[in-house]
């Protein structure tokens, strides 16, 4: 009897050790962080596609408090933590000679002239002059070339990812993989991003009121005394309406070990199964400059690849934008340029299981839509306008199959 007992003890020891060692012992930790200083954030990436290109400039507020929330421990700002930087003079200089002036479309949001189209091989430099006279400039960024995606395929992943933006937590995904051949004669740095267009049947919700299409003002919901203040009515879209999802993973790659070789089966996006309807997935393979790659690698190391025994302790990451008068000022963000190779992939979701038809509304809101009943409050219930925004469009995306 002696031996089996030892066997079990040993097993237990190993399991305890490994379990504790790798994943068993990670707990949520509550923080309460007060930002003392205010920092400038500049985000923007120019590419060679004929689309609207922009630079956004914000400033974090000093004395903002970031706290872990009580139940989910998600870190949230206690109040609005940014101010858009308005009325700045923003310019991009191409190859040291052509100057493009950006116009402020919405507060803090500066758009390149529509005539602009980035050219691989050209260099770009960003200049910002704030209204208080402070001048910032980026380093000169050269738009590198990127090879085409040779093969793209996807696999259904029932385990999926933890998606806290939804009401259900873990969600199955379609995982996208690419093959590409790295050019042999140059150093290459890559970044992948994805944009997903999902059909959304419901595009307005009124709390304590009814939806009027011809209300004549920006607010389409009008309070109705017959309804409780918390009553929710949802309205179907009058036309086709797409919700736009921007992939939030940070997928980057350098050819430092793989120059000139074909890369196969590189996982580059995980598209959540919000509903069983087909959707359009736009996969972008873009080039990065060496320094932009290093910057994003650090962002990744400090906030995504963390929690191992061998973490790199975080450090301030200096981007490529500096205050001309005070080089030690920490400016957040990076002015990037990159050539883009785009693949518009029709994801029919025939290989999936568990998704609901028209299930997007439920997943995002945690409840089924509650349509206003006909004839109860008025003769006809209107259909809602699909209002275009960063996250929604009524214009059918290129590549959509009807």
């Amino acid at each position, binding site marked *: 009897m002696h031996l089996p007992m030892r066997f079990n003890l040993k097993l237990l020891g190993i399991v305890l050790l490994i379990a504790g060692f790798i994943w068993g012992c990670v707990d949520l*930790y509550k923080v309460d962080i007060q930002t003392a200083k205010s920092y400038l954030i500049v985000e923007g990436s120019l590419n060679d596609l004929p689309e609207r290109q922009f630079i956004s400039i914000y400033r974090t507020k000093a004395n903002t408090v970031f706290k872990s929330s009580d139940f989910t421990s998600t870190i949230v700002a206690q109040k609005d933590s940014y101010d858009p930087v308005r009325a700045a003079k923003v310019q991009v200089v191409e190859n040291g000679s052509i100057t493009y002036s950006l116009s402020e479309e919405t507060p803090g949001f500066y758009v390149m002239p529509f005539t602009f189209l980035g050219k691989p091989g050209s260099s770009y430099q960003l200049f910002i002059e704030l209204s208080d006279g402070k001048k910032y400039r980026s380093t000169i960024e050269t738009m590198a070339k990127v090879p085409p995606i040779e093969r793209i395929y996807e696999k259904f992943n029932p385990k999926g990812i933890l998606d806290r933006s939804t009401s259900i937590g873990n969600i199955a995904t379609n995982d996208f993989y690419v093959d590409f051949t790295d050019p042999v004669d140059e150093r290459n740095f890559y970044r992948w991003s994805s944009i997903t267009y999902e059909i959304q049947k419901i595009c307005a919700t009124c709390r304590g009121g009814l939806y009027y299409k011809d209300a004549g003002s920006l607010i389409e919901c009008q309070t109705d005394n017959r309804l409780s203040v918390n009553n929710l009515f949802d309205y179907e879209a009058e036309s086709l309406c797409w919700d736009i999802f921007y992939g939030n993973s940070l997928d980057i790659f350098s050819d430092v070990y793989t120059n000139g070789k074909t890369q196969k089966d590189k996982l580059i996006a995980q598209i959540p199964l919000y509903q069983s309807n087909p959707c359009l997935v736009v996969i972008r393979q873009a080039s990065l400059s060496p320094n932009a790659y290093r910057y994003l690698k650090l962002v990744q190391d400090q906030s995504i690849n963390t929690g191992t025994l061998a973490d790199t302790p975080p450090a301030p990451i200096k981007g490529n934008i500096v205050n001309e008068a005070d080089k030690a000022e920490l400016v957040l963000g990076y002015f990037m340029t990159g050539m883009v190779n785009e693949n518009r992939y029709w994801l029919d979701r025939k290989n999936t299981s568990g998704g609901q038809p028209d299930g997007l509304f439920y997943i995002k809101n945690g409840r089924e839509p509650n349509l206003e009943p006909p004839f109860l409050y008025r003769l006809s219930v209107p259909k809602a306008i699909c209002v275009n925004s960063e996250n929604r469009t009524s214009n059918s995306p290129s590549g959509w199959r009807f």
Partner: protein
Amino acid sequence: MNFKFLPLLLLFTFEGFAQRIIKMEGTIVDSLSNQPISGVAVSTVANNKIYGQISDQSGRFALFLPAGDHIISFKLSGYVPQWRSINEKSPDQTLTIYFQKVEHQLEQVIVSTKGYDENIRKPLLGVNQIDIKALSKIPAAFGELDFLRGIQMLPGVSSVGEASNGVNIRGGTTDQNLILVDNTPIFNPTHMFGLFSVIPPDAISNLDLYKGNVPARFGGRAAAVMDISLKTPDVTKFKMTGGLSLISEKLMVNVPIIKDRLAVYIAARGAFHDFLLPVFSEDLDSVRTRFSEVVGKLFWRINAKNTLSLMGYFSNDYFQTNLLATLPNVVGETTFFEHKTNNYALKWVSLLTPKLDWQTTLTVANYDPTIGTIETATRNRVRLESGVYQKQATSAFNYQGKNSKWELGTSFTKYHIKPGILNPGNSTSVNALTLPSEFSQEADVFIDGEISKKQFAATFGLRYSYFMALGPADLRTYQPNEPRDDLSVIESQRIDKGKIMKAYGGFEPRLGIRYAPNNALSFKIGYNLMRQYIQIASNTTTPIPTSRWKTSDVHIRPQVSHLITGGLYRSFKNDIYDFTLEGYFRKSENSIDYKPGADFLLQPFPETQLVQGLSKAYGVEVMFSKKKGNFTGWINYTYARTFNKTYADVNVLEQVNNGNWYRANYDRPHSFNLSINLTADKHNSFSFNFVYSTGRPYTEPVGFIEYLNNFYPYFDERNNNRIPAYHRLDLAWHIKNPSMKEDKRWKGNWVFTVYNLYARKNAYSVFFKTENGAARAYKLQIFGAPIVSLAYNFNYE
């Protein structure tokens, strides 16, 4: 130290006055076997002079003492010390001392701080000698005896946490400690990312920890020395020891080949049980972990004056998971770590005269770490291999004078570093890549002396080290006022093979003075300068096994550390109680730190990722111990601080915390350790540990921003906050020889251990993670629950 090879070496002091001399002679034998015991230090102090001798091979000794009352002490590591009193009126005496092995009786030998009673050895400061028996009493996680965890119970020794790959001694980094196993350096002291240390416990004889005065014969590291001596093979009899714990098996076999002349032992420990993991959890399917180490040692007593020993040490680690980050920029899902150490030492000791011996040592140390990725589709292994190789020859004369002791020696060292070889295996996606090797060599001469006169004693050492970084190499010159990077290179010069690219040299004085107004009290002060030419370039909290070693060159200047120490030692009641108080201040020049965002992987020019600066550390250590009796133990408190600062001439963009002083990763101001050992009866004893220390610094974000469709933390100052304080209680229950039969050749012991008894969830790190649009803070715990374990050890003679 070396005396165990020299059983005949006599340590005489003579009384010069015309005074009546009494003679005390005798034989020391083992209380059970009646075998003579050599190497026992027999000593006493009379008229402020030390009278001492070491028992010879037949266990005999003879002391000539001035007439008077004397207390004679008999001491040997592993045996219970004894004291005999001699009376003024006694005639010349002949004694037979029956020496008991520690394991044969109740009294314990514990970790001792060398105070006045260690009068055969040097009056150094900050030296702790740790006997393996003492180490085995300390409750250990999983019952695996561990010297690195053991020494953390001493004041002034700390670490960044339970998965720390090494310890921090008096404000030094882990790579500033020289860890020697029978004179060969250990570059990676732990298995499994810091969980277990790498020496087979059965083979350890003792560990000398020098954290204050370091003898001049040691060099090459800036903070401290851990000198681990392996046991010498026993030429008299066959012995076997071994054990089983939840993690590993171990076995040591000692075989005399020619009785009294030639013997060999092999000691091994291994942990190979990972194949069982998937039985418990599917998630563990991908985890593979195993480690092992083997020590072999051959001892040959050529004749009465010459001995030769040959030691080989081999250590192996393998760890594979898909739960850790992969080798960046290689497409694959599973990561593995593999590291190997192969060390060899050949030592020849020749007794030239009874007072003079000559020792020559040749050592080779090879360390080969690998990190790799298994490609998903093909299961091909892509390996990033590296290596550190050191060869050293040392030769020294030891002279034992009347009131003095001298060592004069020289050594020559060759270093070869392979910083990285990317081996794609059969991969069609990855290129082979080899970074050029780095070559360097070092020549040293050293002298150590020790003189004692009345209440004063002094040790002084002087070392001169001369280091040469050699070609072949590509030597870059950078724009002086710009950040050092690929863009600021002015020129690159080819240095030919064997040509000296850069040389550094300098003296390293070591001084210790002791003043002892009486037998029970002494004051010591010391000054130490040490130079370090090889270091780890790492950007992680604790170096990982694959961290890169880098020798000094044109751009990386050697680290120079100055240490000033002072101490007070008081013993009470015949050395039963000990009180020590030590303070230190340490300043290091050219200490290295990584630039914000540094990356060393396959980096051909690590100087572009490093900054140098100053480090200062200071502290006060108080320790009180009870060394004898059924109840032994110690309690200590340390106040210690360590700060770093980048040099002012470093470019502003590369400064850490804008060039201000900042806390080191391991700056933990308050530490408190309590270790108690209770002997209940002949068979049962209990040990308790309690440790407390301030949480270590970590870098907390100063805010969060929405960026690239996600929510990311941003950071400003390094080490701006602390993780929660660390505390823990451990218990061990030792059951000795439960069969109760004293004279059996086979003796079995059980050790039942509970590590982290009250289940404190100590944080190892606090980190921030961005996941699908939300950020959260987490704490990582290594041992968040009580770790209960049982180990069985046996001894057969």
